[in-house]
């Protein structure tokens, strides 16, 4: 199992190395105009520069602020609504198809509305990110509670559990892993939708910076920013996976 995991990791690293080598080769051989593909070393120096002089962190700060604000809203709303609905099978049957249906429509088509209502500043980004992050959280909360093994519920009922006891002692603990995974997905979706909304209509933050550099034909700097965002996404994702697996282990142990 771990052998396979290591193998997979090695293949991935090898692939990245090959890509970088190919990139360097293409740059040296001048096969592609540097406007389309800037030289690898130029992008790296640019990346080092924006990291060392701190400019990138200013933009990162804006984006992260939007993200955390959006996430706090989504978390509060998603968990509250999810629990309220999830506690009753009837309301699950009413709302789950509705929420699923809305989530199947790409919410991004409503982005112009967010801009229209809230302006081009950070408020529209926060609202947009919160909307997107809300759905996986609420759907997984409902789904997690709904998927609890019916035998547990029957046993608890036969032991005379009240509705609240049932919720606290049976439904919630059994559903937590699914809920936690929704919380994680919500965070990542929130992050990507905030970057996206900054790109489409934004003045500040990483997404808007990438676009502005692209429009100024400063492709090397744009690549540097894109790489930075990919790195941040990878780091956030890894952290969340670690948190999730630790959480699941703790939950399993208790």
């Amino acid at each position: 199992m771990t052998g396979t995991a290591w193998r997979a990791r090695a293949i991935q690293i090898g692939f990245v190395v090959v890509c970088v080598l190919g990139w360097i080769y293409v740059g040296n051989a001048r096969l592609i105009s540097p406007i389309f593909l800037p030289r690898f070393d130029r992008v790296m120096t640019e990346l080092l520069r924006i990291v060392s002089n701190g400019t990138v962190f200013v933009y990162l700060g804006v984006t992260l602020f939007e993200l955390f604000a959006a996430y706090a809203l989504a978390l509060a709303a998603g968990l509250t609504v999810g629990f309220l609905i999830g506690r009753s099978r009837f309301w699950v049957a009413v709302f789950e198809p509705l929420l699923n249906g809305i989530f199947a429509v790409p919410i991004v088509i409503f982005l112009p509305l967010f801009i229209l209502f809230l302006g081009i500043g950070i408020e529209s980004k926060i609202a947009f990110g919160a909307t997107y992050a809300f759905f996986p959280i609420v759907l997984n909360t409902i789904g997690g509670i709904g998927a609890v093994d019916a035998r547990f519920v029957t046993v608890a009922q036969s032991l005379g559990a009240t509705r609240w006891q049932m919720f606290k002692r049976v439904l919630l603990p059994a559903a937590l892993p699914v809920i936690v995974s929704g919380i994680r997905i919500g965070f990542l979706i929130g992050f990507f939708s905030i970057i996206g909304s900054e790109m489409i209509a934004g003045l500040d933050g990483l997404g808007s910076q990438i676009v502005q550099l692209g429009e100024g034909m400063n492709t090397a700097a744009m690549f540097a920013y894109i790489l930075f965002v990919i790195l941040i996404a990878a780091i956030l994702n890894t952290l969340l996976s670690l948190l999730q697996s630790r959480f699941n282990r703790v939950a399993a142990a208790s």
Partner: protein
Amino acid sequence: MNLAMTDRAGLRLSPGWVRAGIVVLAVVAWEVAGHTILDPEFISPPSAVIAAFPRILADSDIRHAILVSFYELLAAFGIATVAGIALGVPIGLHRFTLRSALPLVLLIYSIPQVTVLPLFVLYFGIGPASKIAFGVSHGIFPILLNVVAGAQTVEPAHLKAARSMGAGRLLIFRRVVLPHMVPSLFSGLRLGMSATLLGVILAELYGSQAGIGYYTQVFTNSFDPAGMFALVAVLAVMAIILNEIVRRAERRASFWRVTAR
């Protein structure tokens, strides 16, 4: 999920009707608010949105925009489907390709696609090509990964039975492996359809001179919320219809999975 289905029979008040009631109530509340507290420069009541439909659909530019978006979506979905299957089948079928190629697919899938959206425009231009390419980049992964997952579900007992009856490699693929992959392929198509739509619209909103995404911005900038809502509604309806088609196909293709056992 199927909880709702089993529940429905036993409940007096059908959740479907309650759901419909809630939707109606929301629309009515919006209508009332539209005439009283909301600023008509920013939001229009549903009646105004409905009234805007003929106006919008009469405009040949907008009709064209809807067609362009639809064409981009279908092209992207078609390419994503063909490529997803063409890559997914060989990857899923053999242990060697699975072990060596799947990590690469997952690696590429882990890149947040929205960050490279400007690159798609840089490489494919501002026309439909970049929208289609970006749509493909979103739609291909769910399809590919579901095809791969489907290949893993093949029942060893079925393989053994087919072998005992004299089936060769080709027949085993056609009659045993392929049927096993179909239900999972259709879940992939459903997810892929949603993802493709997301990709196409993202790219349209990001920069274009055609398509629905472009006109939503035009309406926003000219403070015409009714027109804008109507256009968004057209898009949403398109999304819902396409989604429903694929969902139906999925249910039909996997009937034996749902009811088996």
